[in-house]
Protein backbone atom coordinates (compact mmCIF):
# COMPACT_ATOMS: atom_id res chain seq x y z
CA UNK A 1 0.00 0.00 0.00
CA UNK A 2 1.12 3.54 -0.51
CA UNK A 3 1.69 5.98 2.32
CA UNK A 4 1.46 9.69 2.54
CA UNK A 5 3.10 12.01 5.05
CA UNK A 6 1.64 15.43 5.65
CA UNK A 7 3.65 18.38 6.79
CA UNK A 8 3.32 20.17 10.14
CA UNK A 9 0.36 22.21 8.89
CA UNK A 10 -1.76 19.06 8.93
CA UNK A 11 -3.85 17.44 6.28
CA UNK A 12 -6.73 19.85 6.69
CA UNK A 13 -4.85 23.07 6.11
CA UNK A 14 -7.38 24.14 3.49
CA UNK A 15 -4.66 24.35 0.90
CA UNK A 16 -1.50 22.44 0.17
CA UNK A 17 -1.71 19.44 2.50
CA UNK A 18 -5.40 19.18 1.99
CA UNK A 19 -4.93 19.00 -1.76
CA UNK A 20 -2.52 16.13 -1.23
CA UNK A 21 -5.04 14.46 1.04
CA UNK A 22 -7.77 14.87 -1.56
CA UNK A 23 -5.57 13.25 -4.19
CA UNK A 24 -4.95 10.31 -1.94
CA UNK A 25 -8.59 9.83 -1.02
CA UNK A 26 -9.62 10.11 -4.65
CA UNK A 27 -7.20 7.32 -5.42
CA UNK A 28 -8.50 5.27 -2.52
CA UNK A 29 -12.11 5.76 -3.55
CA UNK A 30 -11.44 4.92 -7.16
CA UNK A 31 -9.35 1.84 -6.54
CA UNK A 32 -10.94 0.71 -3.32
CA UNK A 33 -7.53 0.40 -1.74
CA UNK A 34 -6.28 2.05 1.40
CA UNK A 35 -3.19 4.06 2.25
CA UNK A 36 -1.23 4.79 5.38
CA UNK A 37 -0.96 8.37 6.48
CA UNK A 38 0.52 10.50 9.21
CA UNK A 39 0.41 14.14 10.20
CA UNK A 40 3.68 15.30 11.66
CA UNK A 41 4.03 17.20 14.90
CA UNK A 42 7.72 17.67 15.01
CA UNK A 43 10.59 18.04 12.63
CA UNK A 44 12.32 15.00 14.04
CA UNK A 45 9.39 12.89 12.91
CA UNK A 46 10.11 13.39 9.22
CA UNK A 47 12.84 10.82 9.07
CA UNK A 48 11.02 8.68 11.59
CA UNK A 49 7.86 8.52 9.53
CA UNK A 50 9.79 7.80 6.34
CA UNK A 51 11.70 4.97 7.89
CA UNK A 52 8.76 3.48 9.72
CA UNK A 53 6.61 3.44 6.64
CA UNK A 54 9.43 2.11 4.49
CA UNK A 55 10.12 -0.65 7.00
CA UNK A 56 6.46 -1.47 7.21
CA UNK A 57 6.49 -2.02 3.46
CA UNK A 58 4.57 1.01 2.29
CA UNK A 59 5.35 1.74 -1.32
CA UNK A 60 5.32 4.35 -2.78
CA UNK A 61 5.71 6.84 0.02
CA UNK A 62 4.52 10.31 -0.83
CA UNK A 63 5.48 13.35 1.19
CA UNK A 64 4.01 16.78 0.89
CA UNK A 65 6.36 19.65 1.40
CA UNK A 66 9.81 21.04 0.69
CA UNK A 67 10.85 20.50 4.29
CA UNK A 68 11.20 16.77 3.66
CA UNK A 69 14.15 17.31 1.34
CA UNK A 70 16.83 16.71 3.91
CA UNK A 71 15.21 13.77 5.60
CA UNK A 72 14.51 12.06 2.31
CA UNK A 73 18.08 12.65 1.21
CA UNK A 74 19.20 10.67 4.23
CA UNK A 75 16.64 7.93 4.00
CA UNK A 76 16.19 7.21 0.29
CA UNK A 77 19.47 5.35 -0.05
CA UNK A 78 18.65 3.00 2.81
CA UNK A 79 15.51 1.72 1.11
CA UNK A 80 16.43 1.26 -2.54
CA UNK A 81 13.39 -0.92 -3.21
CA UNK A 82 10.94 1.69 -2.01
CA UNK A 83 9.81 4.50 -4.27
CA UNK A 84 9.49 7.93 -2.80
CA UNK A 85 7.63 10.91 -4.13
CA UNK A 86 8.47 14.32 -2.80
CA UNK A 87 6.44 17.35 -3.69
CA UNK A 88 7.84 20.88 -3.97
CA UNK A 89 11.46 19.82 -3.67
CA UNK A 90 14.09 18.13 -5.73
CA UNK A 91 15.93 15.19 -4.21
CA UNK A 92 18.41 13.51 -6.42
CA UNK A 93 18.18 9.77 -5.82
CA UNK A 94 17.36 6.86 -8.10
CA UNK A 95 14.24 5.87 -6.24
CA UNK A 96 12.79 9.35 -5.83
CA UNK A 97 10.32 11.19 -7.94
CA UNK A 98 10.55 14.92 -7.34
CA UNK A 99 7.45 16.84 -8.27
CA UNK A 100 7.80 20.58 -8.49
CA UNK A 101 5.19 23.07 -9.56
CA UNK A 102 5.54 26.24 -11.52
CA UNK A 103 3.58 28.26 -9.01
CA UNK A 104 4.93 31.41 -10.55
CA UNK A 105 3.18 30.62 -13.81
CA UNK A 106 -0.14 30.04 -12.16
CA UNK A 107 0.31 33.08 -9.99
CA UNK A 108 1.15 35.10 -13.10
CA UNK A 109 -2.16 34.13 -14.60
CA UNK A 110 -4.23 35.05 -11.57
CA UNK A 111 -2.23 38.26 -11.23
CA UNK A 112 -3.07 39.01 -14.79
CA UNK A 113 -6.74 38.42 -14.09
CA UNK A 114 -6.60 40.47 -10.92
CA UNK A 115 -5.18 43.48 -12.71
CA UNK A 116 -7.73 43.14 -15.46
CA UNK A 117 -10.56 43.08 -12.97
CA UNK A 118 -9.23 45.79 -10.71
CA UNK A 119 -10.96 49.11 -11.07
CA UNK A 120 -8.54 50.86 -8.76
CA UNK A 121 -5.42 49.56 -10.46
CA UNK A 122 -4.36 48.21 -7.09
CA UNK A 123 -4.18 44.54 -6.22
CA UNK A 124 -3.02 42.86 -3.05
CA UNK A 125 -1.07 39.79 -2.03
CA UNK A 126 -1.14 38.25 1.42
CA UNK A 127 1.38 35.57 2.22
CA UNK A 128 1.66 33.46 5.35
CA UNK A 129 5.30 33.80 6.16
CA UNK A 130 8.17 35.40 4.35
CA UNK A 131 9.73 32.24 2.94
CA UNK A 132 11.09 31.62 -0.57
CA UNK A 133 8.09 29.56 -1.68
CA UNK A 134 5.70 32.37 -0.83
CA UNK A 135 7.93 34.88 -2.59
CA UNK A 136 7.72 32.71 -5.66
CA UNK A 137 3.94 33.05 -5.56
CA UNK A 138 4.06 36.76 -4.90
CA UNK A 139 6.61 37.48 -7.60
CA UNK A 140 4.72 35.67 -10.36
CA UNK A 141 1.52 37.35 -9.26
CA UNK A 142 3.04 40.82 -9.40
CA UNK A 143 4.58 40.21 -12.79
CA UNK A 144 1.26 39.04 -14.15
CA UNK A 145 -0.57 42.01 -12.73
CA UNK A 146 1.91 44.45 -14.22
CA UNK A 147 1.77 42.66 -17.52
CA UNK A 148 -1.96 43.12 -17.71
CA UNK A 149 -1.74 46.74 -16.74
CA UNK A 150 1.64 48.41 -16.19
CA UNK A 151 0.00 51.00 -13.91
CA UNK A 152 -1.04 48.40 -11.42
CA UNK A 153 0.21 48.79 -7.87
CA UNK A 154 0.81 45.54 -6.03
CA UNK A 155 0.66 45.64 -2.24
CA UNK A 156 2.18 42.70 -0.47
CA UNK A 157 1.91 41.65 3.16
CA UNK A 158 3.25 38.71 5.11
CA UNK A 159 1.25 37.56 8.10
CA UNK A 160 3.87 36.71 10.67
CA UNK A 161 7.09 35.04 11.61
CA UNK A 162 5.91 32.21 13.84
CA UNK A 163 3.91 29.12 13.02
CA UNK A 164 0.79 31.05 13.97
CA UNK A 165 1.19 32.98 10.73
CA UNK A 166 -0.53 30.14 8.86
CA UNK A 167 -3.48 29.94 11.26
CA UNK A 168 -4.48 33.49 11.94
CA UNK A 169 -7.62 34.33 9.97
CA UNK A 170 -8.21 37.37 12.14
CA UNK A 171 -4.93 38.89 11.13
CA UNK A 172 -5.58 37.81 7.54
CA UNK A 173 -8.82 39.76 7.63
CA UNK A 174 -7.17 42.80 9.10
CA UNK A 175 -4.41 42.74 6.51
CA UNK A 176 -7.08 42.57 3.86
CA UNK A 177 -8.78 45.62 5.28
CA UNK A 178 -5.46 47.43 5.38
CA UNK A 179 -4.93 46.63 1.71
CA UNK A 180 -8.47 47.68 0.86
CA UNK A 181 -7.89 51.00 2.55
CA UNK A 182 -4.86 51.41 0.34
CA UNK A 183 -7.05 50.88 -2.69
CA UNK A 184 -6.78 47.18 -3.38
CA UNK A 185 -9.89 45.62 -4.83
CA UNK A 186 -8.54 42.16 -5.56
CA UNK A 187 -6.44 40.24 -3.06
CA UNK A 188 -4.62 36.98 -3.48
CA UNK A 189 -3.97 34.91 -0.39
CA UNK A 190 -1.23 32.32 -0.11
CA UNK A 191 -1.38 31.82 3.60
CA UNK A 192 -3.06 28.54 4.63
CA UNK A 193 -5.66 29.00 7.34
CA UNK A 194 -4.98 32.71 7.39
CA UNK A 195 -6.36 32.83 3.86
CA UNK A 196 -9.79 31.86 5.20
CA UNK A 197 -9.88 35.23 6.88
CA UNK A 198 -8.65 36.99 3.76
CA UNK A 199 -11.34 35.51 1.56
CA UNK A 200 -13.99 36.13 4.19
CA UNK A 201 -13.11 39.77 4.68
CA UNK A 202 -12.82 40.37 0.97
CA UNK A 203 -16.32 38.95 0.55
CA UNK A 204 -17.62 41.05 3.43
CA UNK A 205 -16.07 44.22 2.16
CA UNK A 206 -17.27 43.69 -1.36
CA UNK A 207 -13.99 43.16 -3.11
CA UNK A 208 -12.71 40.09 -4.87
CA UNK A 209 -10.24 37.56 -3.64
CA UNK A 210 -8.18 34.81 -5.18
CA UNK A 211 -7.81 31.44 -3.53
CA UNK A 212 -4.77 29.23 -3.59
CA UNK A 213 -3.67 25.60 -3.96
CA UNK A 214 -7.13 24.03 -3.91
CA UNK A 215 -10.13 25.41 -5.72
CA UNK A 216 -11.52 27.78 -3.12
CA UNK A 217 -14.12 29.43 -5.32
CA UNK A 218 -16.93 27.68 -3.50
CA UNK A 219 -16.09 29.33 -0.19
CA UNK A 220 -17.75 32.57 -1.19
CA UNK A 221 -19.60 32.06 -4.46
CA UNK A 222 -19.46 35.07 -6.67
CA UNK A 223 -16.89 36.75 -4.51
CA UNK A 224 -13.80 34.73 -5.19
CA UNK A 225 -12.45 35.79 -8.56
CA UNK A 226 -10.65 32.53 -9.09
CA UNK A 227 -8.18 30.21 -7.42
CA UNK A 228 -4.62 29.52 -8.35
CA UNK A 229 -4.92 25.81 -8.30
CA UNK A 230 -1.82 23.79 -7.74
CA UNK A 231 -2.64 20.23 -8.61
CA UNK A 232 -0.93 18.59 -5.70
CA UNK A 233 -3.90 16.27 -5.65
CA UNK A 234 -3.04 15.11 -9.16
CA UNK A 235 0.58 14.64 -8.22
CA UNK A 236 -0.40 12.44 -5.31
CA UNK A 237 -3.12 10.65 -7.23
CA UNK A 238 -0.80 9.90 -10.11
CA UNK A 239 1.94 8.70 -7.85
CA UNK A 240 -0.38 6.31 -6.11
CA UNK A 241 -1.81 5.15 -9.39
CA UNK A 242 1.65 4.51 -10.75
CA UNK A 243 2.31 2.31 -7.78
CA UNK A 244 5.59 0.93 -6.44
CA UNK A 245 7.40 0.87 -9.76
CA UNK A 246 6.70 4.50 -10.56
CA UNK A 247 8.90 6.46 -12.83
CA UNK A 248 11.42 8.43 -10.83
CA UNK A 249 13.21 11.64 -11.58
CA UNK A 250 12.16 15.22 -11.85
CA UNK A 251 8.60 15.99 -12.78
CA UNK A 252 7.77 19.60 -13.38
CA UNK A 253 4.10 20.45 -13.25
CA UNK A 254 3.33 23.72 -14.89
CA UNK A 255 0.74 25.33 -17.05
CA UNK A 256 1.58 23.00 -19.90
CA UNK A 257 0.65 19.79 -18.13
CA UNK A 258 -2.17 21.18 -15.99
CA UNK A 259 -0.01 21.24 -12.92
CA UNK A 260 -1.05 24.76 -12.13
CA UNK A 261 -3.80 26.98 -13.45
CA UNK A 262 -6.70 29.14 -12.61
CA UNK A 263 -10.10 27.72 -11.83
CA UNK A 264 -13.37 28.44 -13.50
CA UNK A 265 -16.55 26.91 -12.20
CA UNK A 266 -20.15 27.74 -11.47
CA UNK A 267 -19.14 29.87 -8.49
CA UNK A 268 -17.12 32.39 -10.42
CA UNK A 269 -18.33 32.14 -13.98
CA UNK A 270 -20.27 35.38 -13.58
CA UNK A 271 -17.08 37.17 -12.66
CA UNK A 272 -15.06 36.14 -15.64
CA UNK A 273 -16.28 37.36 -18.98
CA UNK A 274 -15.68 35.36 -22.09
CA UNK A 275 -13.39 38.08 -23.29
CA UNK A 276 -11.32 37.90 -20.16
CA UNK A 277 -11.17 34.15 -20.34
CA UNK A 278 -9.98 34.35 -23.89
CA UNK A 279 -7.22 36.80 -23.03
CA UNK A 280 -6.05 34.77 -20.08
CA UNK A 281 -6.08 31.54 -21.98
CA UNK A 282 -4.06 33.22 -24.68
CA UNK A 283 -1.55 34.38 -22.10
CA UNK A 284 -1.38 30.86 -20.74
CA UNK A 285 -0.65 29.51 -24.17
CA UNK A 286 2.09 32.02 -24.65
CA UNK A 287 3.65 31.01 -21.38
CA UNK A 288 3.52 27.38 -22.35
CA UNK A 289 4.99 28.24 -25.72
CA UNK A 290 7.74 30.20 -24.06
CA UNK A 291 6.71 33.48 -25.64
CA UNK A 292 6.12 34.97 -22.24
CA UNK A 293 8.76 34.24 -19.74
CA UNK A 294 7.53 34.26 -16.20
CA UNK A 295 10.28 35.06 -13.82
CA UNK A 296 10.86 32.33 -11.26
CA UNK A 297 11.95 33.89 -7.99
CA UNK A 298 13.92 30.79 -7.16
CA UNK A 299 16.02 31.02 -10.32
CA UNK A 300 18.03 33.97 -9.09
CA UNK A 301 16.26 35.04 -5.91
CA UNK A 302 15.30 38.37 -7.28
CA UNK A 303 11.95 39.72 -8.19
CA UNK A 304 11.85 42.43 -10.82
CA UNK A 305 8.22 43.33 -10.25
CA UNK A 306 8.01 43.38 -6.47
CA UNK A 307 10.27 44.26 -3.56
CA UNK A 308 10.03 42.31 -0.34
Amino acid at each position, binding site marked *: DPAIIFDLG*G*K*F*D*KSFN*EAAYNGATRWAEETGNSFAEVELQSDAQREQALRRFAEAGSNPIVMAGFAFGNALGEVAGDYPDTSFVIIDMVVDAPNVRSVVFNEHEGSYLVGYMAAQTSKTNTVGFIGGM*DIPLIRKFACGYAQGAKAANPDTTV*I*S*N*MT*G*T*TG*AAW*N*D*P*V*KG*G*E*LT*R*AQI*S*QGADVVYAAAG*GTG*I*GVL*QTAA*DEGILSIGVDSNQNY*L*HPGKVLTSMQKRVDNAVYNAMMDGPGLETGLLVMGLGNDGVGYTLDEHNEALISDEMKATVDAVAEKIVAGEIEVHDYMSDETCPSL*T*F
Partner: protein
Amino acid sequence: MEYLTVLQILDSGLRLATPLLFACLAGLFSERAGIFDIGLEGKMLISAFFSAATAFSTGSVWLGLLAGIASSLVLSGIHGLASITFRGNQLISGVAINFLASGLTVLIGLSWFKLGGQTPALQGNARFQSIDLPLADSLSGVPILGPLYSEVLSGHTFLVYIALLCVPLTWYILFRTRFGLRLRAVGENPAAVDTAGVSVVGLRYAAVAICGVLCGLAGAYLATGLGASFVKEMTAGRGFIALAALIFAKWRPWYALYATMLFGLLEAISNRYPSLDLGIVTLPSQFMQALPYILTVVILAGFVGKATPPRAGGEPYVKER
Protein backbone atom coordinates in the same frame (compact mmCIF):
# COMPACT_ATOMS: atom_id res chain seq x y z
CA MET B 1 0.59 60.76 6.62
CA GLU B 2 -2.90 61.64 5.51
CA TYR B 3 -5.71 61.99 7.99
CA LEU B 4 -7.66 59.25 6.28
CA THR B 5 -4.77 56.85 6.69
CA VAL B 6 -4.58 57.73 10.35
CA LEU B 7 -8.27 57.05 10.68
CA GLN B 8 -7.96 53.73 8.92
CA ILE B 9 -5.12 52.69 11.17
CA LEU B 10 -7.09 53.73 14.24
CA ASP B 11 -10.07 51.82 12.97
CA SER B 12 -8.02 48.70 12.43
CA GLY B 13 -6.30 49.19 15.77
CA LEU B 14 -9.64 49.27 17.54
CA ARG B 15 -10.69 46.01 15.95
CA LEU B 16 -7.42 44.32 16.78
CA ALA B 17 -7.47 45.67 20.31
CA THR B 18 -10.94 44.38 21.13
CA PRO B 19 -10.09 40.72 21.78
CA LEU B 20 -7.04 41.83 23.72
CA LEU B 21 -9.18 44.17 25.78
CA PHE B 22 -11.68 41.48 26.69
CA ALA B 23 -8.91 39.09 27.62
CA CYS B 24 -7.00 41.76 29.48
CA LEU B 25 -10.02 42.69 31.58
CA ALA B 26 -10.63 39.00 32.14
CA GLY B 27 -7.14 38.65 33.50
CA LEU B 28 -7.65 41.78 35.52
CA PHE B 29 -10.60 40.35 37.42
CA SER B 30 -8.83 37.10 38.05
CA GLU B 31 -5.51 38.54 39.09
CA ARG B 32 -7.05 41.30 41.15
CA ALA B 33 -8.59 38.50 43.18
CA GLY B 34 -5.22 36.83 43.54
CA ILE B 35 -5.55 34.12 40.92
CA PHE B 36 -2.92 34.28 38.19
CA ASP B 37 -4.16 33.13 34.87
CA ILE B 38 -1.90 32.26 31.96
CA GLY B 39 -4.76 30.24 30.55
CA LEU B 40 -6.47 33.23 28.93
CA GLU B 41 -5.35 31.95 25.56
CA GLY B 42 -6.96 28.56 26.06
CA LYS B 43 -10.23 30.00 27.26
CA MET B 44 -10.40 32.32 24.29
CA LEU B 45 -9.67 29.46 21.96
CA ILE B 46 -12.32 27.14 23.32
CA SER B 47 -14.88 29.92 23.27
CA ALA B 48 -13.94 30.73 19.69
CA PHE B 49 -14.62 27.16 18.77
CA PHE B 50 -17.87 26.64 20.63
CA SER B 51 -19.29 29.98 19.62
CA ALA B 52 -18.57 29.32 15.97
CA ALA B 53 -19.75 25.73 16.17
CA THR B 54 -22.98 26.61 17.93
CA ALA B 55 -23.65 29.63 15.79
CA PHE B 56 -23.25 27.48 12.73
CA SER B 57 -25.45 24.68 14.01
CA THR B 58 -28.22 26.89 15.31
CA GLY B 59 -27.86 29.78 12.93
CA SER B 60 -27.90 32.16 15.85
CA VAL B 61 -24.85 34.09 16.82
CA TRP B 62 -26.41 34.79 20.21
CA LEU B 63 -26.65 31.13 21.04
CA GLY B 64 -23.11 30.87 19.79
CA LEU B 65 -22.02 33.59 22.13
CA LEU B 66 -23.68 31.82 25.04
CA ALA B 67 -22.06 28.53 24.14
CA GLY B 68 -18.68 30.21 23.84
CA ILE B 69 -19.04 31.79 27.25
CA ALA B 70 -20.24 28.52 28.74
CA SER B 71 -17.26 26.60 27.38
CA SER B 72 -14.86 29.22 28.66
CA LEU B 73 -16.58 29.02 32.04
CA VAL B 74 -15.98 25.29 32.16
CA LEU B 75 -12.25 25.86 31.78
CA SER B 76 -12.47 28.60 34.40
CA GLY B 77 -14.10 26.08 36.67
CA ILE B 78 -11.18 23.71 36.21
CA HIS B 79 -8.77 26.52 36.94
CA GLY B 80 -10.74 27.42 40.05
CA LEU B 81 -10.88 23.84 41.21
CA ALA B 82 -7.14 23.46 40.82
CA SER B 83 -6.03 26.80 42.17
CA ILE B 84 -8.72 27.69 44.72
CA THR B 85 -10.20 24.49 46.06
CA PHE B 86 -7.13 22.30 45.82
CA ARG B 87 -4.58 25.06 46.21
CA GLY B 88 -2.57 23.85 43.27
CA ASN B 89 -0.06 25.80 41.27
CA GLN B 90 -1.88 28.45 39.27
CA LEU B 91 0.72 28.59 36.55
CA ILE B 92 0.65 24.86 35.90
CA SER B 93 -3.11 24.91 35.82
CA GLY B 94 -3.00 27.70 33.25
CA VAL B 95 -0.53 25.83 31.08
CA ALA B 96 -2.72 22.73 31.24
CA ILE B 97 -5.77 24.71 30.20
CA ASN B 98 -3.98 26.10 27.17
CA PHE B 99 -3.04 22.62 26.05
CA LEU B 100 -6.48 21.28 26.78
CA ALA B 101 -8.18 23.92 24.67
CA SER B 102 -5.70 23.51 21.86
CA GLY B 103 -6.33 19.79 21.65
CA LEU B 104 -10.02 19.64 22.44
CA THR B 105 -11.13 22.25 19.92
CA VAL B 106 -9.63 20.37 17.00
CA LEU B 107 -10.64 16.99 18.33
CA ILE B 108 -14.27 17.97 18.76
CA GLY B 109 -14.24 19.99 15.58
CA LEU B 110 -12.99 17.00 13.64
CA SER B 111 -15.73 14.77 14.88
CA TRP B 112 -18.49 17.32 14.43
CA PHE B 113 -17.69 18.94 11.14
CA LYS B 114 -15.06 16.72 9.47
CA LEU B 115 -13.34 19.83 8.24
CA GLY B 116 -9.99 19.29 9.83
CA GLY B 117 -10.98 20.99 13.03
CA GLN B 118 -12.38 24.04 11.37
CA THR B 119 -15.98 25.03 11.47
CA PRO B 120 -17.83 25.90 8.29
CA ALA B 121 -18.03 29.56 7.44
CA LEU B 122 -20.76 31.45 9.26
CA GLN B 123 -23.30 33.45 7.38
CA GLY B 124 -26.07 35.91 8.09
CA ASN B 125 -27.40 35.69 11.60
CA ALA B 126 -24.74 33.25 12.59
CA ARG B 127 -22.24 36.07 12.87
CA PHE B 128 -22.17 39.53 14.29
CA GLN B 129 -22.88 42.26 11.80
CA SER B 130 -21.39 45.68 12.01
CA ILE B 131 -23.47 48.41 13.56
CA ASP B 132 -23.57 51.99 12.36
CA LEU B 133 -23.75 54.34 15.27
CA PRO B 134 -26.52 56.94 15.19
CA LEU B 135 -25.82 59.97 13.04
CA ALA B 136 -22.62 58.43 11.72
CA ASP B 137 -23.45 59.48 8.19
CA SER B 138 -24.65 62.97 8.89
CA LEU B 139 -21.79 63.73 11.23
CA SER B 140 -19.08 62.54 8.88
CA GLY B 141 -18.98 66.00 7.35
CA VAL B 142 -17.88 67.65 10.55
CA PRO B 143 -14.16 68.38 10.19
CA ILE B 144 -11.68 66.25 12.16
CA LEU B 145 -14.13 64.83 14.70
CA GLY B 146 -16.79 63.84 12.23
CA PRO B 147 -14.70 61.30 10.38
CA LEU B 148 -13.25 60.12 13.66
CA TYR B 149 -16.76 59.27 14.76
CA SER B 150 -18.03 57.82 11.52
CA GLU B 151 -14.88 56.06 10.36
CA VAL B 152 -13.28 54.88 13.56
CA LEU B 153 -15.98 54.57 16.19
CA SER B 154 -18.89 53.62 14.02
CA GLY B 155 -19.29 50.48 12.00
CA HIS B 156 -18.00 47.82 14.33
CA THR B 157 -19.73 44.75 15.61
CA PHE B 158 -21.76 44.71 18.78
CA LEU B 159 -18.96 43.12 20.78
CA VAL B 160 -16.54 45.97 20.14
CA TYR B 161 -18.91 48.34 21.90
CA ILE B 162 -19.43 45.83 24.67
CA ALA B 163 -15.69 45.65 25.14
CA LEU B 164 -15.43 49.41 25.35
CA LEU B 165 -18.32 49.51 27.79
CA CYS B 166 -16.64 46.86 29.87
CA VAL B 167 -13.89 49.30 30.74
CA PRO B 168 -15.98 51.80 32.74
CA LEU B 169 -18.07 48.91 33.97
CA THR B 170 -15.03 47.12 35.30
CA TRP B 171 -13.84 50.30 36.90
CA TYR B 172 -17.23 50.83 38.47
CA ILE B 173 -17.52 47.31 39.77
CA LEU B 174 -14.03 47.28 41.18
CA PHE B 175 -14.03 50.68 42.79
CA ARG B 176 -17.62 51.52 43.48
CA THR B 177 -19.29 48.33 44.61
CA ARG B 178 -19.11 46.11 47.63
CA PHE B 179 -18.19 43.19 45.44
CA GLY B 180 -15.30 45.12 43.93
CA LEU B 181 -13.99 46.16 47.30
CA ARG B 182 -14.00 42.60 48.51
CA LEU B 183 -12.51 41.33 45.28
CA ARG B 184 -9.61 43.73 45.44
CA ALA B 185 -9.14 42.92 49.11
CA VAL B 186 -8.97 39.21 48.48
CA GLY B 187 -6.17 39.72 46.00
CA GLU B 188 -4.24 41.90 48.39
CA ASN B 189 -4.80 40.20 51.71
CA PRO B 190 -7.20 37.27 51.79
CA ALA B 191 -6.77 36.97 55.53
CA ALA B 192 -8.37 40.39 55.95
CA VAL B 193 -11.37 39.22 53.98
CA ASP B 194 -11.54 35.95 55.82
CA THR B 195 -11.46 37.55 59.27
CA ALA B 196 -14.09 40.01 58.13
CA GLY B 197 -16.38 37.05 57.75
CA VAL B 198 -16.44 36.91 53.95
CA SER B 199 -15.70 33.75 52.00
CA VAL B 200 -12.36 33.91 50.26
CA VAL B 201 -13.19 30.89 48.17
CA GLY B 202 -16.51 32.31 47.06
CA LEU B 203 -14.99 35.61 46.01
CA ARG B 204 -12.19 33.96 44.10
CA TYR B 205 -14.55 31.68 42.28
CA ALA B 206 -16.66 34.67 41.35
CA ALA B 207 -13.59 36.43 39.96
CA VAL B 208 -12.51 33.39 38.02
CA ALA B 209 -16.01 33.07 36.63
CA ILE B 210 -16.05 36.68 35.44
CA CYS B 211 -12.71 36.00 33.85
CA GLY B 212 -14.31 33.08 32.07
CA VAL B 213 -17.17 35.18 30.78
CA LEU B 214 -14.84 37.85 29.45
CA CYS B 215 -12.54 35.32 27.80
CA GLY B 216 -15.66 33.82 26.32
CA LEU B 217 -16.55 37.18 24.82
CA ALA B 218 -13.02 37.54 23.48
CA GLY B 219 -13.12 34.17 21.79
CA ALA B 220 -16.58 34.68 20.39
CA TYR B 221 -15.49 38.01 18.98
CA LEU B 222 -12.58 36.37 17.17
CA ALA B 223 -14.68 33.66 15.59
CA THR B 224 -18.05 35.32 15.06
CA GLY B 225 -17.29 39.03 15.07
CA LEU B 226 -13.98 39.60 13.36
CA GLY B 227 -13.83 36.30 11.58
CA ALA B 228 -16.59 34.04 10.45
CA SER B 229 -15.42 30.59 11.38
CA PHE B 230 -13.14 28.77 13.73
CA VAL B 231 -9.66 27.88 12.55
CA LYS B 232 -7.44 25.81 14.80
CA GLU B 233 -5.11 27.82 17.02
CA MET B 234 -6.76 30.96 15.73
CA THR B 235 -6.05 32.90 18.92
CA ALA B 236 -2.43 33.00 17.73
CA GLY B 237 -0.88 34.07 21.03
CA ARG B 238 -3.33 36.87 21.78
CA GLY B 239 -3.89 35.54 25.28
CA PHE B 240 -0.24 36.09 26.04
CA ILE B 241 -0.26 39.55 24.55
CA ALA B 242 -3.29 40.33 26.73
CA LEU B 243 -1.34 39.14 29.73
CA ALA B 244 1.49 41.45 28.81
CA ALA B 245 -1.01 44.28 28.40
CA LEU B 246 -2.39 43.52 31.84
CA ILE B 247 1.00 43.93 33.47
CA PHE B 248 1.60 46.95 31.28
CA ALA B 249 -1.65 48.40 32.59
CA LYS B 250 -0.59 47.66 36.14
CA TRP B 251 -3.86 45.83 36.73
CA ARG B 252 -6.04 48.91 36.22
CA PRO B 253 -9.09 49.06 33.94
CA TRP B 254 -8.53 52.33 32.12
CA TYR B 255 -4.87 51.57 31.62
CA ALA B 256 -5.93 48.20 30.27
CA LEU B 257 -7.82 50.07 27.59
CA TYR B 258 -4.80 52.18 26.75
CA ALA B 259 -2.40 49.26 26.77
CA THR B 260 -4.53 47.08 24.52
CA MET B 261 -5.21 50.01 22.21
CA LEU B 262 -1.49 50.54 21.98
CA PHE B 263 -0.93 46.92 21.03
CA GLY B 264 -3.77 47.09 18.53
CA LEU B 265 -2.42 50.25 17.01
CA LEU B 266 1.13 49.00 16.76
CA GLU B 267 -0.11 45.92 14.99
CA ALA B 268 -2.27 47.99 12.68
CA ILE B 269 0.71 50.16 11.82
CA SER B 270 2.90 47.19 11.04
CA ASN B 271 0.08 45.78 8.91
CA ARG B 272 -0.11 49.02 7.02
CA TYR B 273 3.61 49.29 6.43
CA PRO B 274 4.78 45.77 5.66
CA SER B 275 8.22 47.10 4.94
CA LEU B 276 9.33 50.61 5.42
CA ASP B 277 11.56 52.43 2.97
CA LEU B 278 13.53 54.96 4.94
CA GLY B 279 15.45 56.20 1.95
CA ILE B 280 18.82 54.92 3.11
CA VAL B 281 17.72 51.50 4.18
CA THR B 282 14.56 49.51 3.71
CA LEU B 283 13.42 47.96 6.92
CA PRO B 284 12.59 44.35 6.12
CA SER B 285 9.13 42.94 6.74
CA GLN B 286 10.45 40.84 9.60
CA PHE B 287 11.53 43.98 11.34
CA MET B 288 8.18 45.61 10.84
CA GLN B 289 6.49 42.51 12.20
CA ALA B 290 8.66 42.56 15.27
CA LEU B 291 8.16 46.28 15.70
CA PRO B 292 5.12 46.10 17.99
CA TYR B 293 7.05 43.84 20.32
CA ILE B 294 10.20 45.92 20.18
CA LEU B 295 8.26 49.09 20.88
CA THR B 296 6.48 47.44 23.77
CA VAL B 297 9.80 46.67 25.38
CA VAL B 298 11.03 50.18 24.73
CA ILE B 299 7.92 51.79 26.14
CA LEU B 300 7.95 49.47 29.10
CA ALA B 301 11.55 50.24 29.88
CA GLY B 302 11.33 53.91 29.20
CA PHE B 303 8.00 55.11 30.47
CA VAL B 304 6.27 52.54 32.59
CA GLY B 305 7.76 52.15 36.03
CA LYS B 306 7.68 49.10 38.18
CA ALA B 307 4.35 47.34 38.27
CA THR B 308 3.34 45.90 41.61
CA PRO B 309 1.02 42.95 41.17
CA PRO B 310 -1.72 42.25 43.71
CA ARG B 311 0.14 41.17 46.82
CA ALA B 312 -1.55 37.85 47.31
CA GLY B 313 -1.38 36.95 43.62
CA GLY B 314 -0.36 33.45 42.70
CA GLU B 315 -0.48 32.15 46.23
CA PRO B 316 -3.23 29.85 47.39
CA TYR B 317 -4.88 31.06 50.57
CA VAL B 318 -4.10 29.11 53.70
CA LYS B 319 -5.24 30.36 57.06
CA GLU B 320 -2.42 31.30 59.37
CA ARG B 321 -2.02 32.88 62.76
